[in-house]
């Protein structure tokens, strides 16, 4: 629900309650006033009638009168000290509305004869008052409704403008350009508070991002240098002609392990860099072209394993992606397709306008989905030759570039398909 709608609803519900209470109170006051006045009228009428009766009694006649609004007749009932005023049970109908009566009854002795007096007063005024009241209250409510909506709309446009400006800026925020992000001073205290906090926050995020970037690069530097030292020493040691075979083997194994360590380090750094969005697409890359490049680079390995490569490049798969990431993605997928293949196996590669698929024969079991893209998730016997990061890197590249990746295995074939992610 929009803030504007919410404030309007709250405001109007408060108004309704307030108007109801006021309306009820006013109505009661007015209706009591009218009753009092009507009762006073009844009393005046009674005293006039009593006077009239007394003047008539002097002449020595009994008086009887029965009309709708007035009945005077002698009665055997004992006289009453006070008149009784109550709501009558009957009513008149004026233009379809029931109009009740207020009536006064009194048994008064006039010159020894007890008279029953019944005087009725129409409550027409009160009914009209109630009608008018409802009208006025409804009218005020409708007016308030309109005024509130209009006022809130203007307020939201005027007062909330700085807020919406800040919101737009945050929405369009990009890590790389956060350095130049500024939230200007406004005329409102609260928004100034907000903008100051946003300013501080964006500066913090940017500096964290920069130090993270620096850290990844420094980490590479700090780790690769000792590795380089060890590697150079191993290489020099290998030149020694006096070494036993066993010693040579140990040196080679050490060099092999060192190589893996170095690659692992580079792979982890690459993952961190991809996570930091340090690779922005510069243009569209052609998956068919890059695949051809790597097929010729890997030709020795393909030849050695006597793999049969089937390519289907009639339609190219072209997407905006940093060329380094495209290289990394394709070389990893092709590398795996070769590595996990068997001698004389098959690799199929197909591009369509919407997808890129690499399939290979393998005696490996299907990779369980929970281990598929996990770093170091590989548990196969070939794991020694893998750094365990290849698929994690492929997945990370896909995730950060709006690509989906689908893995299928069956019939001794494993395949990875890359498509644009449906938005």
């Amino acid at each position, binding site marked *: 629900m929009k803030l504007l709608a919410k404030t309007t609803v709250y405001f109007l519900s408060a108004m309704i309650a307030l108007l109801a209470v006021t309306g009820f109170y006013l109505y009661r006051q007015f209706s009591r006033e009218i009753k009092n006045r009507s009762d006073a009228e009844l009393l005046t009428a009674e005293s006039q009638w009593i006077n009239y009766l007394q003047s008539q009694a002097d002449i020595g006649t009994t008086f009887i009168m029965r009309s709708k609004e007035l009945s005077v007749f002698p009665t055997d009932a004992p006289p009453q000290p006070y008149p009784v005023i109550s709501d009558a049970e009957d009513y008149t109908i004026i233009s379809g509305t029931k109009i009740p009566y207020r009536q006064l009854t009194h048994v008064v002795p006039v010159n020894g004869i007890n008279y029953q007096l019944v005087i009725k007063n129409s409550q027409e005024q009160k009914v009209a008052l109630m009608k008018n009241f409802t009208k006025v209250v409804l009218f005020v409510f409708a007016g308030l409704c309109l005024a509130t909506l209009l006022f809130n709309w203007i307020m939201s446009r005027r007062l909330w403008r700085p807020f919406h400006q800040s919101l737009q800026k945050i929405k369009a925020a990009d890590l790389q350009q956060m350095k130049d992000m500024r939230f200007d001073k406004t005329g409102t205290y609260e928004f100034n508070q907000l903008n100051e906090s946003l300013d501080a926050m964006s500066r913090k995020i940017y500096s964290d991002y920069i130090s993270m970037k620096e850290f990844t690069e420094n980490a590479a530097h700090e780790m690769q240098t000792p590795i380089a030292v060890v590697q150079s020493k191993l290489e020099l040691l290998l030149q020694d002609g006096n070494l036993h075979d066993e010693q040579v083997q140990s040196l080679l194994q050490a060099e092999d392990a060192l190589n893996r360590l170095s690659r692992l380090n580079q792979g982890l750094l690459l993952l961190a860099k991809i996570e930091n969005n340090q690779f922005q697409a510069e243009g569209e890359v052609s998956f068919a072209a890059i695949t051809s490049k790597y097929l010729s680079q890997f030709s*020795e390995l393909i030849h050695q394993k006597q793999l049969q490569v089937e390519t289907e490049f009639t339609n190219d798969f072209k997407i905006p992606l940093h060329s380094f990431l495209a290289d990394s993605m394709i070389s990893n997928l092709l590398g795996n397709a070769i*590595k996990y293949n068997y001698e004389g196996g098959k690799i199929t590669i197909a591009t369509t306008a919407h997808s890129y698929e690499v399939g290979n024969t393998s005696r490996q079991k299907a990779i369980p989905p929970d281990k598929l893209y996990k770093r170091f998730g590989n548990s196969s016997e070939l794991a020694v030759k893998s750094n365990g990061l290849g698929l994690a890197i492929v997945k990370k590249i896909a995730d950060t570039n709006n690509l989906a990746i689908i893995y299928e295995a069956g019939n001794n074939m494993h395949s990875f398909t890359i498509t644009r992610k449906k938005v």
Partner: protein
Amino acid sequence: MKLLIIEDEQALRESMVKYLSYQGYVCETAADFLSARDKLSLFNYDCVIVDIGLPGGSGLDIVSEVKYLESKAGIIIISARNTLDDKLKGLELGSDDYLTKPFHLSELNARIQAILRRRSFDGNKTIGFHEIKLYPDQRKATVNEKSIDLTDKEYNLLEYFISNKGRVLTKPAIAEHNWGDEYAQAGEYDFIYTHIKNLRKKLLDAGSGDYLKTVYGSGYRFTDL
């Protein structure tokens, strides 16, 4: 040929000096930015090998300094930073090559030789080893002045072997130099054997001595010993 090796990590510096001296270079060293700059202004070098991260300044500034001095020295940057930006920046400033740590000393040596050859103006653009002669510009090889027919990979192998003559070259180093980084990643080097077998046969058939020796278990060595 005189080299200046600028690297702050003492152990790595010593490894480079040891390997390159054996290959016949005169090696001088500097461990920080200022001493490197002093040496550059005082002496002439044929090739400068410089690390980017140095105490007292950036190796990239050394590259600018070399260019400013109008030195004829070739420049190889060695850096732990494997980013495209750094590589482009280095090459833009005028370095001839960029090598990422860790590297094989044999690879560094091969690159130094390639640069020196490209920069030599005395016309000596061939590489020789006894009766074998290489013409890098044409990527051709002769044995006793008779041309031999080598594939691209075989020529690369031969040039790499002769550049690092006398040294044991491991399969990973050979694979990385001739087939690229991705091959070293694959961890399978059996295909190298086929190429080396063919190269050796072609050299022997052309009448050259048997210089390409298998070092049992570790790799290969090109030597007349």
